[in-house]
């Protein structure tokens, strides 16, 4: 495989063209997103079944959540999705500096999301609305409201973990972008992180109504 000029540094040896490499990367990412959907899906299934078993307890328990904070978090995450998409778009038109700005905006919004989440969790720890045997709150009647909080902490906790992973990856992108790795010919990593970030936002779009609005 002669190392010709048409063979830039980022094109891996076993791909015949950049298009093939990009399509493969995207397909790989989409399949990874499928595994994420099914990973969260298990929890959504547990939610569906316990919701169906005791709908009234779930409804009572969801009143303990503050939908205003949830709503604010939803808006924050949608905006971060927007800034991520714009970051990719600016790379597509070869404006690396603008892309970095949007990536920083995405991280800022993600941190805001985590901070709001921290307040919500702190309040619950303080009041005792905790999963399983740590549940000591007495404000909600019904035989087993702790199932609702077990599911709440697991689903939003796992989602929060994914947000933090996303922040780490975007930071790594910013470093690579500043080093000049990306241009309109090669921005695969940014696009892949974008897909991941939009999925994290998409999962929160489902979590928000299920826990905060309907319960």
């Amino acid at each position, binding site marked *: 495989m002669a190392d010709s000029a*048409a*063979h*830039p540094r980022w*094109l891996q040896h076993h791909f*015949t*063209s*950049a*298009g*093939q490499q*990009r*399509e*493969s990367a*995207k*397909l790989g990412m*989409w*399949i990874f*997103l*499928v595994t994420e*959907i*099914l990973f969260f*899906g298990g929890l*959504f*299934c547990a939610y*569906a*079944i316990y*919701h*169906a*078993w005791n709908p009234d307890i779930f409804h009572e328990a969801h009143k303990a959540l503050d*939908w205003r904070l949830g*709503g604010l978090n*939803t*808006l924050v995450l*949608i*905006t971060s*999705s*927007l800034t*991520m*998409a*714009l970051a990719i*778009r600016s790379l*597509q*038109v070869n404006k690396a500096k603008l892309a970095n700005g949007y990536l920083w905006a995405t991280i800022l919004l993600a941190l805001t999301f985590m901070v709001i989440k921290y307040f919500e969790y702190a309040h619950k720890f303080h009041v005792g609305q905790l999963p399983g*045997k740590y549940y000591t709150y007495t404000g909600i009647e019904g*035989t087993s409201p702790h199932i609702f909080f077990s599911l709440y902490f697991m689903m939003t906790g796992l989602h929060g973990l994914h947000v933090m992973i996303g922040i780490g990856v975007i930071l790594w992108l910013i470093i690579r972008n500043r080093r000049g790795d990306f241009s*309109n*010919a090669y*921005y695969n990593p940014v*696009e892949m992180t*974008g*897909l991941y970030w*939009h999925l994290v*936002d*998409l999962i929160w*779009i*489902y979590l*928000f*109504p*299920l826990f905060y*609005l*309907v319960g």
Partner: protein
Amino acid sequence: MSNEHSAHGASQDHVMPVRNYLMVASALFVLTVITVAVAQVDFGAWNLVVAMVVATTKAVLVAMFFMHLFYDNKLFAAFFTGSFVILGIFIVITMFDTMERDRLYPEVATPIREHAIIYDDEGKPLKQNAHAGEGEHGEAAEHGDAAMEHEEGAAAEGGDEQGSEDATSGGH
């Protein structure tokens, strides 16, 4: 399968004008406000359905435009919807079990805790609603009833050595 493109030149992917992104984002904001507003009104079970419909439209918007599914190879959309189909199968068929357990015998479905007494003191099968038996426990006259009573006991005052210590005690 893969579209052959030169390594250089403008990226092959579809470049959306910024205006489209902003429109999609504003649509998502509006939908969020709608779903919050609708949730204030109590439609009973319908609340869940409406919330899910709105959430799904938001999800489709994010997937189609932010994740470029609309412009990309249909294979990605196939995998993406495929995962939701498998998840749907998982939830629906499991609920065929969890929601239909009391079809033949009502006492099979609900946890024992609610059914205080199946037998009365003389051991005759006593079909009555759960709470009537709450009061007159009295001295556990008989094994069957007693097994019920101390199951109850385990839940009520919690934590002592009913059955194997850690499985059924639930440390309150």
